[in-house]
C-alpha cells in the first residue's frame, strides 16, 4: 500500500511540476477547442523559389539576402485566441535557422519576427504567449529560413526541404505540454553566448528551466520516499544516489543530444574541406574575402605602417582585424578611445560598410560624424574605403 501511495505521490508531483513548467491553466480544455490548419502548399513563396508538391511546399532555393520566406494571408485572426503554433518541416538542413514572421492589422507595414527552435522532422510546437508582439489581429503569417548568422556563410550549399504544415491552436493542456516538450528538447545552434551561459542563445522568453524542474522532482521523490516508504539511513542514501544519478543522466543525455545535433551541422559545413578551404566556409566569409584582397593590396607596405580599421559593427571590425593579421592593424575606435595621441601621418584607415564615413575629394579628407581627417585616397571600391593620413587627426 505504501508503495502504491508513493507511486501516486511521485506521479502527482511530476504532473504538477510539469504543468507549472508548461504554464498550463486549469481552465483550459484537454485538447484545443479551435484550430486553424494550413497545408504547406497553402503558403506562397515570397523569397526564394518553391514548388507545390503533394500538399507540401518544397523550397528549392534561397532568395534575396540568402533567405527563403513563405507566407499566408490571414483574415485578421485573434492572437489571444490562437497562441499555440504547431509546425512541421521535412528535411530542414542543420545549417539553416528558422523564424516565424507575422504582420498585425494595427501596423501592416511592420514585419515581426520570432526565432524558433530548429524544426526536426515531425511536429514542433511553440508557445506564442510570451511573445510581446503576438497581440491584436494577425493578418499574415510566414516562416523564414536563412543560414545561421555568424556561423554559416551565405554561400553554403543549399539542400531543398519542405514546409509540410502549420497550425494555430487555442490553448489546451495537450498544446501546453507539447510546447514545453519542444522548448526543452528544441535544438539551438552554437552562438557567441554559448561559452558564457548555455540556454541564453536567444533573448526569447523560455519555459521554466528543465534543470530546476528535475531538481525539484528529485527533491520531491526523496521527500516522498522518506515520508511514505519510511526509508532511513542506508536505504534512503541508496535511493538518493539512484535518483540523483538518474536526474543527472537525464540532463546529460539532453545536453549530449544537442551536442550531437550541433556537430552534424558542423560536419555538414566543414567536414568535406581541408584547412585552407575551411577558413573560407566561415559565417563571415565576406569579411574574409575583403581582408584577403586588402592583404594583397597592402603587401608592400612597411611593417611600421599603422592600419586602423572601422566598420559598421564591432563584430565586423574585430573580424577584419583578425583576418588582416599579421599586418600592423588595430581597431580605430578602440585606439581613439584609449589615447589622445594623434594618428601618425602615413597611417592607413580602412573603412568598411559604413555609409557615414566618406572621403571628401575636394577637401582631401576623410569625413565622419563631425570628424575630419586629412587623407589621400588609396582605394575606394564598393563598401571598402582605404585612405592614408596626411597629418594628425
Amino acid at each position, binding site marked *: 500500500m505504501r508503495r502504491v501511495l508513493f507511486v501516486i505521490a511521485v506521479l502527482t508531483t511530476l504532473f504538477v511540476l510539469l504543468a507549472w513548467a508548461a504554464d498550463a491553466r486549469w481552465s483550459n480544455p484537454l485538447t484545443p477547442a479551435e484550430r486553424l490548419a494550413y497545408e504547406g502548399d497553402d503558403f506562397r513563396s515570397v523569397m526564394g523559389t518553391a514548388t507545390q508538391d503533394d500538399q507540401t511546399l518544397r523550397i528549392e532555393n534561397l532568395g534575396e539576402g540568402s533567405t527563403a520566406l513563405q507566407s499566408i494571408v490571414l483574415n485578421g485572426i485573434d492572437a489571444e485566441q490562437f497562441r499555440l503554433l504547431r509546425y512541421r518541416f521535412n528535411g530542414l538542413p542543420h545549417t539553416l535557422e528558422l523564424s516565424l514572421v507575422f504582420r498585425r492589422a494595427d501596423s501592416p507595414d511592420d514585419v515581426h519576427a520570432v526565432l524558433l527552435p530548429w524544426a526536426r522532422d515531425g511536429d514542433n510546437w511553440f508557445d506564442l504567449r510570451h511573445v510581446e508582439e503576438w497581440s491584436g489581429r494577425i493578418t499574415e503569417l510566414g516562416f523564414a529560413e536563412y543560414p545561421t548568422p555568424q556561423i554559416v556563410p551565405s554561400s553554403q550549399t543549399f539542400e531543398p526541404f519542405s514546409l509540410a504544415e502549420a497550425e494555430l491552436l487555442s490553448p489546451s493542456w495537450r498544446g501546453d505540454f507539447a510546447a514545453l516538450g519542444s522548448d526543452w528538447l528544441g535544438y539551438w545552434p552554437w552562438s557567441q553566448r554559448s561559452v*558564457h551561459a548555455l540556454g541564453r542563445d536567444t533573448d526569447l522568453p523560455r519555459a521554466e528551466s528543465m534543470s530546476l524542474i528535475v531538481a525539484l522532482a528529485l527533491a520531491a521523490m526523496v521527500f516522498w520516499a522518506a515520508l511514505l516508504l519510511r526509508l532511513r539511513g542506508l536505504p534512503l542514501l541508496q535511493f538518493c544516489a539512484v535518483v540523483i544519478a538518474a536526474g543527472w543522466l537525464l540532463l546529460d543525455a539532453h545536453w549530449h543530444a544537442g551536442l550531437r545535433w550541433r556537430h552534424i551541422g558542423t560536419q555538414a559545413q566543414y567536414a568535406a574541406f581541408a*584547412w585552407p578551404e575551411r*577558413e573560407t566556409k566561415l559565417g563571415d566569409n565576406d569579411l574574409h574575402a575583403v581582408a584577403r584582397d586588402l592583404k594583397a593590396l597592402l603587401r608592400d607596405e*612597411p611593417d611600421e605602417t*599603422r592600419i586602423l580599421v572601422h566598420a559598421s559593427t564591432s563584430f565586423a571590425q574585430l573580424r577584419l582585424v583578425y583576418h588582416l593579421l599579421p599586418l600592423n592593424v588595430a581597431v580605430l575606435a578602440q585606439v581613439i578611445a584609449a589615447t589622445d595621441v594623434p594618428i601618425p601621418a602615413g597611417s592607413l584607415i580602412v573603412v568598411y560598410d559604413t555609409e557615414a564615413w566618406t572621403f571628401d575629394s575636394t577637401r582631401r579628407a576623410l569625413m565622419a560624424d563631425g570628424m575630419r581627417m586629412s587623407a589621400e585616397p588609396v582605394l575606394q571600391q564598393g563598401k571598402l574605403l582605404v585612405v592614408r593620413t596626411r597629418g594628425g587627426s
Partner: protein
Amino acid sequence: MTLYYVLAWLLPLAAGAGICLALERAPLAPGAIAAALGNGLLLGLLLTGTLVALTSGGDTSHAFQRTAPWLAVIAVISALVVFRRGVVASAWQRSAERASGVNGSSETPPRMSAWVWLWWLLLAAVVVRLFVLGSEAWLRPTFPWDAWSAWSVKPKTWFLLDHYIAYVEPSRWLAEPAIAQRTSAVWDYPESLAWVQVWFASAAGAWNEPLINLAWTAVLGAMVLLSYGQWRVLGIGAMLAIVLAYALVSLPLIGAHTALAGYADLWLAATFAAAVLAWLRWIRQHELAQLVLALLFALCLPMIKLEGAVWLFGFSLVVVFGLLPRRWRWRAAALVVLVAVIGIALGGFLLPLIGLGWVRVSWGQLVIPVLGALDLHWRPIGTAMLSGMLTLPNWHLLWYLVPVVLIWRRQVFARDRAAVALGVLLALCVMFLFVLFFFTDASAWAENYTSANRLLLHITPVVVTLMALLLADVSLRSRDTGREPPAPTDQG
C-alpha cells in the same frame, strides 16, 4: 596530419609525465599513473609554451624544431630518473603480482562485478564525450568572440610574421610610429597560451585553427585524468572517483569551452585543479615533491589569465597558513585581518599580486593597475547569479548538490585536515567572486551572463574535489554484506 604534429603531442606528454613520474614515490599508489599522465600532459604543454617563448622568438615558424630537442632531453632525463628510482619496476611488479593472484587475490580470475561494469561504462562515457567534443573542435575554425579577438591575436601575428613582436598600449603604438610594434585592446594579456598555440601551428606547418584548438580537448582530458588519479592517490574509491570524473566532463559549460575552443578559462580551471590536488597530497601524505608540483602549477596561473593572479594569491595565503604551526594560525589570521583593517582605516594599502601589479585596497574602492578603479558598493544581482548556476543548463545539478553535500557531510571538516584546508581555500575564492560580482561593476558580467559562469568554471574542478573528499567514506553497501566497490586495476 604530419609526424611533427603527432610529435607535438607526444613530446610535451613525455616530458611532463616523465617529470611527474620522477616526482612519484615507489611503490606507486593506486591512481598515481593516471595522475602523472594527466598532470604530465598539462605541465608538458605549459612547459612547452615557456620553452617556445625562450627559444623561438626569432623564428616562430620553426618553433617545433627549436623546442622539440629540449623537450626530448627533458623526457629522456626524467625517464632515466624514473627507471633509476624503480618507479616503473615497482608498478610492473605489482601488476605482475596481481596477474598471478599474489597479495590476496583469489586464484581463479574474479568475475566482473556490476560495480566493475559500471566503472568501465562510466569510463566509456568519459571517452565518448571527449571524442565528441574533440570532433567538434577538430572541424571548426576558431569561433568564440574573445578567442579570435583576444587570445589568438598575438600567436597568429607571431606565427605568420615568423618572429615575436611586442604588443604595446595604443598610446605608445601611435607615439612611436617608426617602431614596428603592435597594439590591441588586450595587449597586456598573459602570453603563455599564445606560445602553446605557436607550438602547434609550427608543428602543423600552418596557422591551422582546428589543429591548434585540439589542445583544449587535451586539457579537458588532462584535467579529468589528473583529477581521477589524484583522487585515487588521496584515498578516494575507484567508483566514486570515476563517477565524479564523469560528472566533471559532463558539465555543459566545460563541454562548450572544449568544443568552442579558444578561451583561457578551461586552462585556468585545469591548472588550478592540478595545483590544489598536488597540494592536498602534500597535506595528506607529506610528499614534498607534490608541494613543489603544486607551486609550479600555481605559479603558472597568472601566466595563463589575469584572474589567475587572484587564485594564486588565495592559494598562497592558504598554503602559507597551512605551513604555520597550528597554534599560530588563528593569531596570524587575526593579524592579517587587523593589518588590513588598520590599512583601510589609514586610507588604504598596497597589495602586490603577481600578474596584476600593486593593487590598492581602500574603503569603497579597489584600484587594479590593469583594470582601473573599481568602486565598491552593493549590486543586487543575486537572481542573475542563481539563474546562471541553477536554472540555465550550464552545470546540470552541480550547484544544487554542493550545498546539500556540504551540510550533510559537515562533520568531515572536523576530522580531515585536507578538507578543512580546501574548504578555506574555496571560501576565499567564493568571497572574491562575491565581492567582484556583488560589489563592483563586474556585476554587469553577471547580469548579462557573460563572465560570471566562466569565473565559476575556474573553481569548479576544485569544488568537485571537495565533494570527493567529503563523500570519500560514504558507502552505498551495508557494512556486513559487502566491501567498497573494487578498482578495476590497482593503478586505476
